[in-house]
Each structure stands twice: as C-alpha cells, then as structure tokens.
C-alpha cells in the first residue's frame, strides 16, 4: 500500500427513487429529500440527497477492496455542498478512494466525493487496519 495509490472508485447514479429508498431504510423522512415544494419553500436549489446517503455510499466504495468492513476503525466527513437530485435526470456522484497515509497498524484512505465538478464531502477520511 503506497501513499497516492487509488484503491477503489465508482460512480453512483442517484434518482428520486434512491432517496425515497434511503428515507425508508434510515428513518430520515425530512421532506427536503423528496418534495420539490418543501425544498423550494425553505430556499434550497432543489430536492437534496441525504448527507448520510452520500456518506454511506462513499465508504461502501472501498468495502469490496477491504474484504471485511470490520477493518474500518474510524470514518468521518464534513458535509460541505449539497447534491441536488433532479426529478428526471437524477444526479451522478463519483467516489475516488486514495491512500493518504500509512503507518505500522493502520492506513488512512481519503475519499474524494464529487457531484459534477463540485466536491460535496470535506475531509472524508477512513482509517483502516492494515
């Protein structure tokens, strides 16, 4: 494992159906994640993906590479920019996972999570057991 290695990457196509599915699975039924009228009323640019959905799909990008999700000892993100999910076109979220640092016992994997040209999660870092 070398600093700078890309260990996993993928693109996920989010749709309104995906947001409703996440709402049901997580219990987060905030209507800004499925109702255009509510999103507009509170001044948002559109219906947004749940930040926790973006965080959740981002880390899953590396699980097949890790082989065992139990190797993850810490995972943190900042929610810096929203992902607007269009009713017809949805939204593409791209995830690139790169080795950021390596020590004797653990490695830090840095996730770059973007919607178009915009990075949507800040300091998205996963510490994993080597």
């Amino acid at each position, binding site marked *: 494992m070398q600093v700078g290695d890309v260990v996993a990457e993928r693109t996920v196509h989010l749709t309104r159906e*995906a947001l409703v599915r996440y709402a049901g699975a*997580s219990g987060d039924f905030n209507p800004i994640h499925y109702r255009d009228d509510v999103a507009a009323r509170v001044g948002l640019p559109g219906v947004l993906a749940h930040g926790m*959905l973006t*965080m*959740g799909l981002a880390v899953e990008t590396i699980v*097949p590479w890790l082989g*065992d999700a139990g190797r993850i*000892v810490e995972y*943190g993100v900042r929610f810096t920019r929203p992902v607007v999910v269009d009713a017809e076109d949805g939204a593409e979220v791209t995830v690139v996972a790169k080795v950021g640092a390596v020590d004797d016992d653990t490695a830090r994997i840095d996730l770059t999570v973007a919607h178009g040209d915009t990075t949507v999660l800040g300091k998205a870092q996963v510490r994993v057991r080597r």
Partner: protein
Amino acid sequence: MPVNPDLVGRAFPPTAPYLVGREKVREFARAVFATDPQHTDPAAAQVLGYPDVVAPPTFAMVIQDLTLQQLLAEPDSGIALERTIHAEQRFRYTRPIVAGDELTAQLSISGVRAVGKGAMVTSEAEIVDAAGSHVVTATSVLLIGGEE
C-alpha cells in the same frame, strides 16, 4: 430560545434496546449501494468470522438517531429541527454491527459553542451491545441557526 449550554454534562438515559434484523441490514445495504456479499449473504459473513450479515458502516446512524430524538425532545434544549444543519459526522468502531446485535446508545453533549446568532452542538452516542461491550461511538456536529 437559544441553544442551552447546560446540555453539556446532562445525563441522558440509555435508549431502548434495538435488535438488528437481517432483513433491515439488507434493506439498508441496498439503500447505500452496498454490493459486497458480507452485507446480504450470511454465508459470506460467516467466512469472515461473523455470526450473521455485517451492517454497512453508516448503519450506526439508525441507532444514533434514537439519541438525537431524545435531544430534540428536551423541552429546554433550544434546538429546533427546521433550523438544524448536519455539519459533520464521525464513527469510531470497536467492531462492525452484525445482524442479531441488541444495541443501546447513550447520548452525551460534549460541546455547545456560539456561532453568530446560532450554535454548534457536538453530540456523541456511545453504542454498546447486550453484554455492555463497546461497538461504535457516533459523533454528530449540528449547526443550529439563530432565530430571525
């Protein structure tokens, strides 16, 4: 009502036990585009040494949410959901959550810091299994906007 700084250090009761079901883990895995078989196939999880399917890492939020409901229910918290933005999230794991776990969470507020007219609230949920052993600590930073 501004966010109450006395929330720091307040004792909250543990949440009612949450029994992690296999189908709930599968449902959550599908929702976060988790394709690895350890999340859906008990045999794949057993090969890794787990008794049943392994929940995706952010599944801990489902348990932590029970503590955030406790916080919102405090009559003097000064925290209104419609003015709340989720700014940061972190999980520190001793082990992954597995179907069959019976989990409880204990809420604590580690910080309330004034930001403009609002406040930044750091809430921690320590999640333990039925034996009382630590599973994961979930930390949320919430930005509470000030009233107009």
